């Protein structure tokens, strides 16, 4: 299945945050990094604002050289906790568009937006919305690249920096890469570049046209990788990092509820939406927690740790209902119900089971529900037991 991967890269991130927080720095060369000590400093530049880049100051440049090139620059040590705070806000905004986010550094992330396309009106629309929200809410500029894979998305986001927005459509991968310099390929440093130039290769397009075996003979396995990248092939998936401790869904009733049937149905509904959220985030968890708030606002949690990492609606529902049944409400009504799953594990590290094939029907149904909901929205299809029988489900013309 074709994918849409978005690479988000904050422009001159540390410097931009400083310019945002301290208006007096705006429009001036701001350099974050080691103390220049009047040119005698050791260490390197972490980030330079675009104003500083005009003087040839860039990240990883020794701070002493930066000082020579731009002595009047504003040199700052940096406030890492502040950058982290903003970085989290950027991820939070991204998270509203897809849960499949792989944060690769404080100012860079890959988003797999394949499953969010129909919900938000397409890849470009998502890209523009994220960019706009980051600007409107945080006052910062992100460069964005959208492509069928990670490698192309990263090249794309870098291509028109700052304030870049580049989309590579499916089928246009090779065309897009063809004129680009070989240094844009991941892992091509000075050494490889020199060897390639000896072979009269200067553009990615030329690598793509070189027979794969020739590259293999020259560079070994790395040559094959080079050839694949040059041809726009990159199958790596966006792997959400498990920084999250737990994932949950809860709901507060409009009026306090005593009816067991409604409570069970609500738990089923919560299990369903939590399960779906977990599958979207490619997370499974082992501890299921039921949260109950009673009419007097007293709040309780009850947990159960399972042997397996799970994400299935049926299991979450069964555990939640079992926990609920054991809970003594002291004849009070329920104000809020929630289910949380913790001890999370990304699906890639999943313990396989001997009897996994034994519940194929439930898995198939879940996959079917997922694909329908991905395409047409959450309300297009529901498990029958979750239907609200008190309301008409379909409106008909009179």
């Amino acid at each position: 299945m074709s994918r849409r991967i978005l690479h988000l890269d904050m422009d001159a991130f540390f410097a931009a945050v400083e310019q945002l927080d301290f208006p007096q720095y705006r429009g001036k060369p701001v350099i974050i990094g080691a103390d220049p000590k009047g040119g005698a400093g050791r260490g390197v530049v972490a980030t330079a604002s675009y104003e500083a880049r005009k003087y040839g100051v860039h990240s990883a440049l020794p701070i002493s050289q930066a000082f020579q090139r731009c002595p009047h620059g504003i040199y700052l040590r940096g406030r890492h906790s502040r950058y982290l705070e903003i970085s989290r806000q950027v991820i939070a905004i991204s998270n509203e568009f897809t849960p499949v986010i792989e944060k690769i550094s404080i100012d860079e992330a890959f988003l797999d937006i394949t499953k969010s396309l129909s919900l938000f009106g397409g890849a470009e629309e998502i890209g523009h919305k994220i960019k706009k929200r980051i600007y409107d809410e945080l006052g910062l500029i992100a460069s964005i690249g959208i492509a069928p894979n990670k490698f192309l998305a990263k090249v794309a986001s870098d291509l028109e920096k700052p304030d870049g927005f580049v989309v590579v459509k499916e089928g246009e991968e090779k065309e897009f890469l063809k004129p680009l310099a070989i240094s844009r390929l991941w892992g091509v440093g000075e050494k490889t570049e020199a060897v390639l130039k000896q072979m009269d290769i200067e553009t990615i397009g030329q690598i793509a046209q070189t027979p794969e075996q020739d590259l293999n003979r020259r560079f070994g396995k790395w040559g094959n990788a080079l050839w694949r990248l040059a041809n726009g092939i990159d199958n790596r998936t966006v792997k959400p990092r498990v920084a999250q401790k737990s994932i949950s869904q809860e709901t507060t009733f409009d009026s306090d509820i005593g009816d067991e049937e409604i409570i069970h149905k609500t738990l089923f509904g919560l299990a369903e939406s939590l399960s779906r959220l977990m599958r979207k985030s490619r997370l499974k968890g082992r501890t299921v927690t039921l949260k109950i708030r009673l009419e007097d606002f007293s709040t309780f949690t009850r947990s159960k740790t399972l042997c397996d990492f799970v994400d299935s609606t049926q299991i979450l529902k069964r555990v939640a209902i079992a926990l609920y049944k054991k809970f003594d409400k002291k004849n009070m009504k329920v104000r809020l119900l929630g289910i949380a799953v913790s001890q999370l594990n990304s699906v890639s590290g999943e313990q396989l089971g001997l009897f996994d094939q034994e519940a194929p029907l439930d898995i198939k149904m879940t996959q079917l529900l997922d694909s329908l909901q991905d395409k047409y929205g959450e309300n297009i299809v529901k498990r029958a037991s979750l239907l609200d029988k008190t309301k008409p489900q379909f409106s008909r013309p009179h």
Partner: protein
Amino acid sequence: MKFKVNKKTFHQAIQNIIGVVPIKTTIPILSNILLDLQGNELSLTGTDLEVSISTRIEVQGETDGAVAVPAKILFEIVRELPEIPMEFACDEEHKITLNTEKGFYKLSGESKDDFPKISVEESKGSFSIDSKKLDGMINKTIFAVSTDELRTTLMGVYLKIMADELRMVATDGHRLVKIVDKNFSSDLEQEAIIPTKALNLVSKNLNGTKEIKVNLSDDHIVFELDKTTIYSKGIEGQFPNYERVIPTENDKELTINRELLSSSVRRVAIFSNSITHQIRFSMTKGNVKIKSEDIEFGGEAEETIDTDYDYDDLDVGYNANYLLDILRHLDTDEIILKVKDQISAGIIYPTNQKENEDILMLLMPIRLNED
């Protein structure tokens, strides 16, 4: 009801059965044990309604009778008393007095009629088995039993009695142990899933018993030891088709020293992810590398063990704890691991099976994080 008993005998008997008494229960009578005196024989019984245990000791009986006694208090006072004789007495009102030279201890019991009767339907048949053999089979299987209440049929050891062999199988869905005793004969063919609680009680109460008589009925299994009888309801439901999941196409095989492997895995596992305990087996001609890595905390470890592996390279992920459990329950110096690919169960068994015994363990991999 009145009898004299020495501390050691009484304490030992209570200790043997207290394991079955539920700690928290909605049925208060279950937190008692039933004492029943007939002549010089005192029987003590505890139950949680699923599993029951009854044991008999010699006392100096004076007046026959029976009473249900709060288990925890009785156990604690008898445990704390020194090696002195004690006299147990109970009146019509179920008031119990324990007299010793140190002083007296009074507590209230319950009528024996309120204590649940252990009802077992008629036995369908029975067999006898050497107690050491059964104990060994319990010990080698019980660790693999599931604690997952969502799959009750995996919460016990599956026992299958056949004309010429006895099988015990346990699995939690991730690993599986199958042990077969071939020096066995029986007239009846039957199967049952026995809760771990009952099997643990059998192991703990052997006390010199040489042979155990096992009675089976439709939904009960009864273990008769010399002085103790354990009754257990079988777990209802169908044990999964374990034969189907034992791979037949595992064509890559390696022989490895069990202790060497265990110690390597223990060290490498320290650096594995604390939730998954994932380690990686990198098998290549001549050796196996055991690696772990915790991306979140940046830890990493690798060890190499020489082996006779002589096939294409293969990497498989396993849960280190599961693997260690398996290795711990095998006896031989060397073990054999047979694998097929990254997603199929590995088969582990000893290089030399014991006479008349056939043991096999399965371990499912953890899906590796490959690009």
